[in-house]
């Protein structure tokens, strides 16, 4: 595959690679950041990356099932964000900080 073709012809692999890059960024965020809310945001980033690949497959295979999955993922993401933020608020009320290291005080 010549170099020019890579750039001027957009195919499924371009979207999939974009999705992979976004997923890796999100994963790096989860591993590297210590703020609970930023962790949640990185998870949202990963879910979005998955959504991109679902929509890509849906488009390139001509079926709508992939888009249905995106709906489900979005709902789960919203639910996860709601619970995560509620947890963050209760952590913040307790310790005035949302750093992940305070979670070890939560046992018992």
């Amino acid at each position, binding site marked *: 595959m010549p170099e020019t073709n890579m750039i001027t012809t957009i195919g499924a692999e371009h979207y999939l690679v974009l999705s992979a890059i976004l997923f890796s960024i999100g994963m790096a965020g989860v591993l590297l950041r210590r703020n609970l809310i930023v962790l949640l945001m990185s998870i949202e980033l990963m879910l979005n990356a998955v959504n991109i690949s679902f*929509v890509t497959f849906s488009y390139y295979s001509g079926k709508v099932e992939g888009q249905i999955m995106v*709906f489900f993922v979005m709902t789960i993401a919203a639910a996860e*964000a709601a619970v995560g933020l509620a947890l963050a608020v209760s952590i913040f009320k307790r310790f005035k900080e949302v750093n992940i290291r305070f979670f070890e005080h939560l046992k018992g």
Partner: protein
Amino acid sequence: MTADVFLFWFLALITVISGLAVVLMANPIYSALCLAMTMISVAAIFVTLQAYFLAGVQIIVYAGAVMVLFVMVLMLFDLKHELQAFTRGRATGALKIASVGILSGLIVGAVTIGLTIAGRSSDEVISAAAAGGVVDTTRGLSEALFLKNIFGFEALGVLLLVIAVGTVALSRSKGGTHARD
């Protein structure tokens, strides 16, 4: 270079840059705003893939509701000093970055090799997509959602109810708005 190609590269650039900014910004509020930017550009990517309704839903649900919630919570916290934005320890950090790099390399490699081994160049796939034709996606989407996947849809409704009750129970302080603890 046609408009579609330009659009893809432009959107991909914005998505990756704002996604990186989410992880790299030390201030969580900037991270949240960058994530909102990512959501909007992902919605635009959905438009290039002809998933118009999903793009609208993405903007309403993610950018309009979920991220506003994040930003509101962050602004309520109003963190004056961020202790330890990033993980401790050079060695573990390097290890983590390396593992992320390996993972992304694996995925990208798998995608490209998979496409070459299958021998389907992207042109064929595009023509296949044109033949299959996802025309009038909104109608097709609603039929697939409400006829074929109705159980999943109802299960999601139950899930949302559970989540709503759980969230209220979690965030409720004793005595409502006039808590005394």
